[in-house]
Structure formats: C-alpha cells, structure tokens
C-alpha cells in the first residue's frame, strides 16, 4: 500500500480570485517580514476582505524556520482559533504554516514531534492553504515540513500526511518580483526535486510523470526567468514545475542531494536550493558509477528533455549531469562548496558532523546506491574541491 496526494491546485492568471470562493470566518496567515514589506500579502488580504474573512498575520518566520519560531506560532494560532491557516511565501513560510496548523490541533506537542507517527485530525478545526512566492520548494504540494534545530545545527525532516495543503494557489503575480538570485536558488531546488523524485526507490509510475515534466520545464524556462523576471510565460511554467517537482518527490522521496544539501545548509547556512543544487551533479555521478537502474532513468530523462538523442544509457546520463552543471553555471550558482566561500579548514573539521547528519536522513536510504560513512565523506570532500565523483 502506498498513496499519492496533492492539493487542489488553482493556477494561472488571476488565480488569487479563487479566494472569493473560500468559505470561512478567520484566516491565520503565516509569512515573513520581507513578504509583508514587498506588499505580497495585500493581494491576499484584499481578497479575504471581499470574502468577509477576518485575518491575522504571523510574520515571524525566518529562512530555515526554527523550532522556537514554530512554537511561538503555535501559541499565536491557538489564541486566534482560525478556520484557515494560509502559508504565503517560500518553503520556509509554507512549512511553518503546516507545522503551526498541526499545533492548532495538538498544542501539547513539541515541534520536533510533528511527525507521521502522530495523529492530528486538524481539519476538525481548520484547513490549510499554500500560496508560494518562489518557484520553488514545492512545499505547496507536499506534506513534508523541514525545521531547523538551531541549538544542534540540524535540519529535521518532519511532517504528516495530513498536512498536504487543501488548496495551493499559483498566481504568477506572487513571483514576478522574485530577484534573480532567489529565482536561481529556488529553481535549482525544482530540478533537484524533479530528478530525485523520478529516480527515488520509493517512486512508482504515479510519481514519474510530474518529475519528468518538471525537469523539462526547468531546463527550458529557468534561465529565462532568471534573466528576465518579467517573462510571464517563464514565471508561470516555473511555478508549475515547482509544484510538479513537489508532487513527484513529495509522493516518493527526495534523495542524496537533499540529505547532503540539508547537512551543508544546517551547518554552513547555505540557502537550501543552492546547497541541494550544488550536490545534485555529484550525487548523480555517484549513482551512475554503480547503479544501472538509476543510470537508465537519467538516460530516459536526458532523451525526453532533448539533452541527448543518441548514445548509451551511461553517455546520456552523464549528458544530463553536464546539463545540470551547465544550468547552474548559467545561473551564476556555485559549482563547488569552496565557491560558496566556506573555508577549507573549517569545512574539514565539520565533515564528521556533515556525515552524521546526512546518514540519519531517510533520503540517504531512498536511492539505489546507499552510501556509508566512508563514501559520504568522500562525496563531501569532492564537492568541496569541485571534483567529479570517480568512485
């Protein structure tokens, strides 16, 4: 038994108008101060006003939301008792909204216990909506919640199958103002989700389609969106790609680029999309070197996305790796950890911690070649130097 879930996805021009159809009395908006400053909350609250839904804003979410912030949000939502919780922002805000709605139902829980092992039944009280302002983490279409334990410098992969949003609204007006750097970082997250979702050992035929299309859309539209934020077609297709990437990995599992990227992000505070996108080609090489199954899958993707038209599976798979690196290069992304400005001595000191964190993520186990400590250590070292994986 497995399952596939996704929200009602309302997308395209003027999709925020959907808010006029929403039934409810009170909405608790979870976001960050920057989103408020950019004026991105106003289009939403304007529609809520039209629908005669009261609202309150919780804008304390920081990038890589902490357990402390979620706890604070849990107290605030408990006082407000809304019937909608709306996450507006990037993955941090949407993940925070998911965590906070779980605490609405189970206020006695600590945020680090918000896992699939608990039952919440929050829909007896409120429903969940996600409105992304990046393209993106795909959080609007997953039940995953990633929080940061700031005391231990560790990312926690939490979440409940119950916290798949009820509705996701993909209105391009929310992403048009995204600066190039964020467009690039979050865009690399999309291709990582797409490729890892497609090749996950937890994947099935249900999760292949969204991953494949998300890969093709990212290769076609991300650089356009990066170079010209006003390119409406590129913005719309990247929003779709982000959500489809979420549908793919969210219903299978992310992989090794995510577990290594999480570890790097937790300890060296490299933004999520930049970190996972950096590791993606290295982890792809690692899998190609011993997994015929994943090599064949990469080759399928390469052929479908017109990255390679002829050649063996290995040649086509390596062409996809090269294409991912080229994409990162076009976006001005770092191709090695050294390029992120991390000092070598400091990095080498942290390798044991990086390994330990990556080892204890489910995503390290859902690939066809599961690394142990030694291989993880080598991947971390090679990625620092920018050396292709040859083992």
């Amino acid at each position, binding site marked *: 038994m497995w399952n596939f879930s996704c929200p009602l996805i309302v997308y395209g021009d003027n999709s925020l108008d959907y808010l006029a159809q929403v039934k409810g009395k009170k909405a608790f908006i979870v976001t960050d101060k920057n989103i408020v400053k950019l004026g991105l909350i106003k289009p939403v609250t304007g529609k809520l006003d039209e629908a005669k839904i009261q609202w309150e804003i919780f804008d304390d979410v920081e990038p890589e939301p902490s357990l402390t912030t979620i706890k604070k949000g849990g107290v605030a939502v408990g006082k407000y008792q809304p019937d909608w919780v709306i996450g507006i922002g990037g993955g941090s805000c949407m993940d925070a909204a998911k965590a906070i709605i779980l605490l609405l139902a189970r206020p006695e829980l600590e945020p680090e216990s918000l896992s699939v*092992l608990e039952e919440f039944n929050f829909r007896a009280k409120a429903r969940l909506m996600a409105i992304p302002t990046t393209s993106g983490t795909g959080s609007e279409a997953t039940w995953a919640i990633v929080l940061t334990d700031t005391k231990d410098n560790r990312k926690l992969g939490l979440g409940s199958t119950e916290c798949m949003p009820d509705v996701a609204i993909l209105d391009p007006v929310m992403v048009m103002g995204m600066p190039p750097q964020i467009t690039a970082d979050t865009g690399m997250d999309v291709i990582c989700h797409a490729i890892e979702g497609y090749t996950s050992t937890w994947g099935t035929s249900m999760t292949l389609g969204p991953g494949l299309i998300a890969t093709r859309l990212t290769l076609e539209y991300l650089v356009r969106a990066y170079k010209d934020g006003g390119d409406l077609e590129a913005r719309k297709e990247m929003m779709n790609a982000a959500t489809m990437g979420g549908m793919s990995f969210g219903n299978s599992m992310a992989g090794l680029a995510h577990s290594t990227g999480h570890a790097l992000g937790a300890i060296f505070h490299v933004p999520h999309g930049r970190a996972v996108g950096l590791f993606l080609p290295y982890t792809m090489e690692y899998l190609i070197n011993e997994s015929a199954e994943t090599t064949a899958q990469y080759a399928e993707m390469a052929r479908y996305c017109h990255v390679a038209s002829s050649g063996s599976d290995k040649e086509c798979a390596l062409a996809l790796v090269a294409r991912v690196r080229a994409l990162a290069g076009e976006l001005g992304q770092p191709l090695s950890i050294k390029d992120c400005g991390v000092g070598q001595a400091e990095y080498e000191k942290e390798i044991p911690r990086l390994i330990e964190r990556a080892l204890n993520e489910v995503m390290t186990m859902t690939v066809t070649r599961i690394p142990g400590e030694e291989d993880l250590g080598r991947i971390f070292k090679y990625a620092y130097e920018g050396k292709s994986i040859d083992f």
Partner: protein
Amino acid sequence: MGGDFYFITEPGGPVKEKGFMYVDLYHGKCRACEIVTDPNKYKPAFTLAAPYNIWKQIATKKLDSTKALITRQSKLTGDMAKIMRYTKAANELTNCTMLVPTEWLD
C-alpha cells in the same frame, strides 16, 4: 543511541495471540532479547506493533519500515523526536533482522 523496544505482532493470519519481543539496544549492542509472555514485565521506551503479514514484508524487504509507519501499517509509540534522529539505526535494525534465519508460519 539507546532504547528498549517491544516489537509486537498483532493477532491475525497465522498468529492467534499478540506476541511481544523485548529488545534492548544500546550504542550498537543488543543487551537483551527475549520473547515475553507477560507484557507488564518491561516498560520499554518504544513499542512497534504490526500484523504478522506486515512484519514478514518488512523482514523480507518487500516493504520499507519507514513506509510502513507513514502508511500506518505499523504503529510506533515512544519519544518521536528521539527516534526521528536515528533513521540509519532503524534501517540497520531491519537489515539485521534479515540476517536471522527465520521459519515463517505460512
């Protein structure tokens, strides 16, 4: 990591009565392992319960143990925050299970 467990087989299929196996794990070593007839004998930190057919699928790697939890085919009680940090250990526990010669009831 340290933790003691009851691994519980729920009645169903060839299993007529609830079965309890106590396992005490401590930093890579198994300090105790016994079939328990009186479930009140121990108060372990964790319990993991599933029907026989699910245990068999997990032990023969037809079903991932984490997937079994996500789909509520198995049920875990205990300190969730603690256990969520030890995915590798959970994976190795399943791998170790496969090494034990087993006679299945069906």
